[in-house]
Every structure is written in structure tokens, then in C-alpha cells.
């Protein structure tokens, strides 16, 4: 798979207005948090999600960036909400690779995402699916995230609003596949 070209250095002589319109090339802290939470949501939907992530990384040709599962795990540990967090930021290539893995996994899980979002599914069955997803996500968050952070506490709260979970699933559904890559990447680069 073709890799994205390296980020062009910002020309300091460029006019201020032009510089402010240029999209950022690296994920902000908030972007990293969202990316890792979306990957965690994939793991909550798919019991074998962690293994699938490693396998997908190899299939997509990212073995040079993430040679093993530890390297993949380390890249996700740039999320400041993790229990064990790493300093620094991800390179643009690493970010693109993680987003590409997320989009491809979301594409594989799309039938499940569709069921969760559909209003034509039987309501009691869909409530069970949402409950299962919420429970698994809370377990994963408790296991890997820093429980002293308020945003982490909110995610593991059993009274978490369905709209928060729905936003995550909707994000995965709209970011699934090749077409979703640009959309999801632009969303993760939003100003905060």
C-alpha cells in the first residue's frame, strides 16, 4: 500500500492567514484520545479485535511501522488517558496507518454497526446489543485507562448516556471503508 508522503514543513514566511488555513499534519491530544477510544470500541464489538488489529496491520502492509503487537500497543499508548502513557506524538505515517487499520476493521464490522444504528431492528434485541457493547467497553476502559481522569470515569459509569455510545458507533459506521478514511482523519484533526 502506498504510504502518505511526509509532512511538508511549514513555511514561516507564508502569510498568517494562509498558515492558519493549512490543516494540521499531526494529531492533537484530543485526536489521539478519540482515535484510541474508537480502536477500543472495535475491540469491544469484536472479542478477537486485538488480534484482528495485528493481523490487519500486516495485511495492509504496515509491518515496517508496527513490526509486532508491542509496537502497535506502544503507538496506542500515546493516548494521554492510558494507565501507561508515552510522551511525544505519533508521526503522520503512524497516524495514517492506525486510522487505515481502524477504517478497515470498521468495514469488517459494518453489518454489526448497521444493526446497532438501525431503527427497524427489534427494540428489545437492540437494547441487549447496546448493553453488551457498553459492558465490554467499560471493562476495556477500566482495564487500560487511568481511572483518575474524569472523562474515563464518565465512560465506565453505568448511567452513561446512550447518545455517547451512539456517537462512537456512528463515527465508526461513517468512517468505515476506503471512503471513510479522509472523513475520519479530518475529524480527528479538528480544532479543539
Amino acid at each position: 500500500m502506498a504510504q502518505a508522503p511526509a509532512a511538508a514543513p511549514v513555511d514561516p514566511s507564508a502569510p498568517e492567514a494562509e498558515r492558519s488555513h493549512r490543516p494540521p499534519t499531526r494529531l492533537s491530544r484530543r485526536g489521539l484520545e478519540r482515535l484510541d477510544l474508537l480502536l477500543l470500541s472495535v475491540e469491544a464489538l469484536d472479542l478477537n479485535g486485538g488480534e484482528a488489529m495485528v493481523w490487519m496491520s500486516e495485511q495492509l502492509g504496515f509491518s515496517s511501522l508496527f513490526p509486532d503487537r508491542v509496537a502497535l500497543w506502544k503507538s496506542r499508548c500515546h493516548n494521554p488517558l492510558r494507565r501507561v502513557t508515552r510522551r511525544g506524538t505519533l508521526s503522520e505515517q503512524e497516524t495514517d496507518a492506525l486510522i487505515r487499520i481502524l477504517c478497515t476493521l470498521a468495514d469488517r464490522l459494518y453489518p454489526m454497526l448497521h444493526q446497532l444504528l438501525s431503527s427497524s431492528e427489534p427494540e428489545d434485541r437492540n437494547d441487549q446489543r447496546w448493553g453488551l457493547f457498553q459492558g465490554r467497553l467499560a471493562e476495556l476502559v477500566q482495564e487500560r485507562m487511568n481511572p483518575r481522569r474524569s472523562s474515563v470515569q464518565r465512560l465506565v459509569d453505568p448511567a452513561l448516556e446512550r447518545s455517547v455510545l451512539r456517537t462512537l458507533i456512528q463515527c465508526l459506521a461513517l468512517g468505515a471503508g476506503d471512503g471513510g478514511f479522509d472523513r475520519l482523519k479530518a475529524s480527528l484533526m479538528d480544532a479543539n
Partner: protein
Amino acid sequence: MKLQRRYDQASCRLQVEGLPDVSAGQSSQAIGIITGWQLQLAARPELEGRKEHLIAMAEAVLPYARHLISGVRRPFGGPEAPVSIAPFEVEHEADAERRRQGHELTLRSSQPDTPPLTLRIDDAELADLVRCLDRLRLDPLLQVPLQLPEPQPLRAKELQARLPLHRRLAAPVGGALALGLLAGLSWFLPTPAPQRAGQATQTAPPTKLAPSR
């Protein structure tokens, strides 16, 4: 010979018909000129139109999805546009506290005296429609320049719509009220009594310089 490209999803099917543009050197399998399209959404009337309507739909739906993924629910396509899409919210049938969210897709015909057609779709149907449009956009055998804008990161001002006005105003209004309260309380503090003119003040005695030898 007319060519067809079909993009299928669970609740949506988009079919594009056209011809190869031989004058542009395109292969005989590629569509270079769109002559028509049909969109079938499950249990909804079939839609069809010309290339301009397809582009108008992509121009409204794809940026809408782009904003939705960032949590911004805002309409796209004005009242005069051939296609517009806007969020809507209705109360849940069983539980009044729960609200069902959806999307209202409005198509306006170019034929006179034809009322606009409004379709209400849920999140799953919107995702299907977006995937169909994505596949159309990325199809190497559809060589029609659609000129759709690339998704861009949203600016802080655009993201303000994510939070309702009362939550955005909570912090500055709370700060102003706290400041006002402290300023009000400071009026109750006793002011120091003014000093009388004749009252001697205790000052340090003047320093005597040692006589020079």
C-alpha cells in the same frame, strides 16, 4: 452502448447509467458521461435524476456526514438547492424522555408544479447512502469529474454547534456571577478609620551619622 454501475448496501442501492467518453480516450468499460441514475432506499419511492442532481446529492450528503462524524448536526443544502439534508428529532413512541434522531433528505424537482419529496432516514440508512456515494466517488470505472470538496478539519467556531448555548455560556456567566458576588461582598468589609491630623505617628528615629574623625 449504455453502461451501468451499481453500488449496493443493505438498505440502499445506487445505480448509475452512462456512456464511455471515447473522445477523451477512455476505455469502453468506463463511464465518462452520466445519462441518468436511480436511488432505491428500502420501503421508499425510487428516486432518479440527471448528473446535476447526483452531484447535488453528493454535495449535500457527504459534508453532512463529515460534520456528523465530528458530532456537529447541521443542515446542508439550502431551501433552493435541488437536494438538502437536515437532522430531525422526534419523541420515542414508548418513552417520552428518549428521543429518536434521524435525517430528513429533501429532493426538489426541476419540473414546475412538482412538490418536493421528503424522505426520513435513520442513522443506518444514512451510513448506507454515504457508503454508496463513497464507492461512486472512488470507482475507477466512473471517470466523471465530480469535483467534490475534500473533507477538511473543522475549526473551533464550527465545533461550537456541538454544545448547546446554555452549556457554552455556563462557564463565562458563572465566572461573571462569581466576580460580581465577590465585588458585592467587598462592600461589606469595614473600611479603615481615617487618621487625625494631630495624631502622632510612630516613626523610626532619624539615624545619626557618626562624626567624621
